[in-house]
């Protein structure tokens, strides 16, 4: 029995904690400098709100439980405008309610982070069970043309970093960032090493250098494309609106203003994929079969990759950590020599379509999935591989 000894040793190491994924989200957000949280109870994300209700006041932050998820994201946007890094957390039904407000944050370019802990759907679905059914909702849930940034993680150490990254990206690009995890990662407990202060770089808000009471243009980009902000209610008076607007924040119906704005909102993300794409890969070079997965299911995929390699099969794996913008170029390049590409996800096939669109010879792409609320097991994936290879299960 080596496990207890190992745990006892680890406990003696500084900064090792044994946490639930939801607690990791809360602690990482505080590490990132988040000081305003508004939320509404919903399974399986509630522990994020619970922990932050206790932790935020201890670090000078503010917590509020709002009347619903719409109000939660609205309050988060209001607070973020005043200069506080802000966040909300929810699950499928609540995330559906937030869609219009998410579009407002995109349109008004207000940095904020939304954690969506996926559960089975549609509707009330399977509140206490896992799913990865919100991937496309993150991308296209709000109306109109837009882009979005979405990060995920399969283990708590990565999750800690992804949440911090989410705040860094939100501040850099003035955009909402969705941290999309699933019930398994959210409720699973595992050890996580808490980084020291200063160990992970934090991006602070770029504040305008325009002096008080001199005209400040909230939507006038610097040469590098970044839009400096001015804390709302502070030194500069300006207008923020969800209508199509010019650099002053004034509503406009002019075709050229609308055209420029929509292009800007999309290009600021899609043209910076290189800065936004995070992924991990294992044994992809020379792999005949490449597994592609993300979140909790990546754990099963990695397990079966190792298991199959042990019997001599050339199986590799890519774990996606940035889901949006989707890393088309990366996937095409890394999968070009594979015989088969197996996308492992807990839905009826969402990312698989992105993969099919990204690779040459898309008939190589297969889906290993489950939608019954239970985790995909390594065996599920193994069986599919056997079917693909004509071996029978």
């Amino acid at each position, binding site marked *: 029995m080596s496990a207890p000894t190992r745990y006892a040793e680890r406990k003696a190491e500084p900064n090792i904690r044994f946490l639930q994924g939801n607690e990791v989200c809360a602690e990482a957000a505080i590490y990132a400098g988040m000081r*305003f949280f*508004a939320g509404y109870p919903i399974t399986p994300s509630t522990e994020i709100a619970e922990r932050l209700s206790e932790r935020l*006041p*201890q670090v000078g932050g*503010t917590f*509020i439980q*709002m*009347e*619903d998820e*719409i*109000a*939660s994201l*609205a*309050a*988060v*946007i*209001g*607070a*973020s*405008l*005043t*200069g*506080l890094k*802000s966040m909300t957390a929810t699950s499928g039904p609540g995330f559906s309610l937030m869609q*219009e*407000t998410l579009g*407002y944050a995109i349109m008004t370019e207000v940095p904020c982070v939304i954690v969506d802990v996926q559960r089975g759907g549609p509707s009330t679905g399977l509140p206490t069970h896992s799913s990865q059914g919100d991937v496309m909702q993150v991308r296209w849930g709000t109306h109109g043309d837009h882009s979005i940034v979405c990060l995920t993680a399969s283990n708590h150490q990565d999750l800690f970093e992804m949440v911090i990254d989410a705040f860094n990206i939100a501040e850099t690009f003035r955009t909402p960032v969705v941290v999309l995890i699933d019930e398994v990662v959210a409720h699973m407990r595992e050890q996580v090493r808490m980084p020291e202060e200063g160990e992970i770089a934090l991006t602070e808000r770029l504040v305008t250098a325009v002096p008080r*009471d001199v005209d400040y243009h909230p939507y006038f980009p610097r040469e590098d494309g970044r839009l400096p902000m001015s*804390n*709302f*209610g*502070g*030194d500069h*008076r*300006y*207008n*923020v*609106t*969800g*209508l199509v607007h010019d650099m*002053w924040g*004034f*509503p406009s119906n002019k075709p050229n203003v609308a055209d420029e704005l929509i292009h800007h909102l999309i290009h600021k993300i899609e043209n910076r994929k290189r800065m936004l794409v995070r992924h991990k890969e294992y044994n992809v070079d020379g792999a005949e079969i490449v597994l592609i997965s993300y979140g909790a299911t990546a754990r099963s995929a990695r397990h079966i990759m190792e298991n199959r390699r042990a019997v001599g099969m050339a199986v590799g794996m890519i774990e996606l950590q940035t889901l949006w913008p989707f890393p088309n170029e990366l996937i095409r390049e890394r999968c070009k020599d594979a015989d088969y590409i197996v996308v492992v996800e807990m839905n009826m096939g969402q990312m698989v379509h992105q993969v099919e669109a990204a690779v040459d010879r898309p008939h190589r792409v297969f889906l290993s999935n489950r939608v019954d609320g239970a985790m995909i097991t390594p065996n599920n994936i193994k069986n599919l591989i056997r079917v693909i290879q004509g071996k029978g299960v």
Partner: protein
Amino acid sequence: MAATDYLRKRFMPHIWCPGCGHGIVLNSLLRAIEKLGMEKNDVVMVSGIGCSSRIQGYTDFHTLHTLHGRALAFATGVKLAKPEVNVLVPMGDGDALAIGGNHFIHAARRNIDITAIIMNNSTYGMTGGQYSPTTACGDLASTAPYGTVGKPFDVVALARAAGATYIARTTTYHARAMTRILTDAIKHHGFSVVEILSQCPTYYGRENDRGDAVEMMEWYRDNTVAIKPDESGPINSACNGEEAPLPIGVFVNRSEPEYCDSYAKLVREKVLS
């Protein structure tokens, strides 16, 4: 500073129809702010969607034009994050009481220091005159060609039940009283609600044969009655075709712990000590 100095003329000409009551509300509101001697930088104005919600664009304050019904939720975030600013939230009746009804009662329940101004014209002006939660029983609207069914909200009673600590009702006819009321409402430390009956001659007036803007304002003059504090009365709540005169004035003005103060106190006593 003169009241007109608070205008953001770059946004003009405004979108309102000739005779619309909302311009009178803007006038009274700026006079109230002038009377209070507030600096432009002291005021944050958060609005939703509708004809009334465009008022925010015409003022040279910190202005946040949000989503239909959600102004109070955005404003709650601003106020909690920056309690030192004065937050004013102008809304229409549909904005505040239909799609935003939940946010309205919860903001009132919290007694957060926000001034909610409900410009009530009993219609959705911007979308073309549909019936709203304050349209009287039987009134015509573009979605009520045979008359509106169901009772309208009494905004005063609703705000009182939800816990607002300052509640007043006035009309665009009573512009001077409106300025006084808005002055008090802004000064009030807690959630204040000012319902202002504001004519929409373009839709509600035309659909219901109420005449032009002047006639509609004269109707406000002839069909309202001033109340003493803490009296209340029904607003067109009976569905029998009879309209009782509408009580106007200050209905509630009391002091109770404010939300941001209470949160700060709690943190001081339970977390930091």
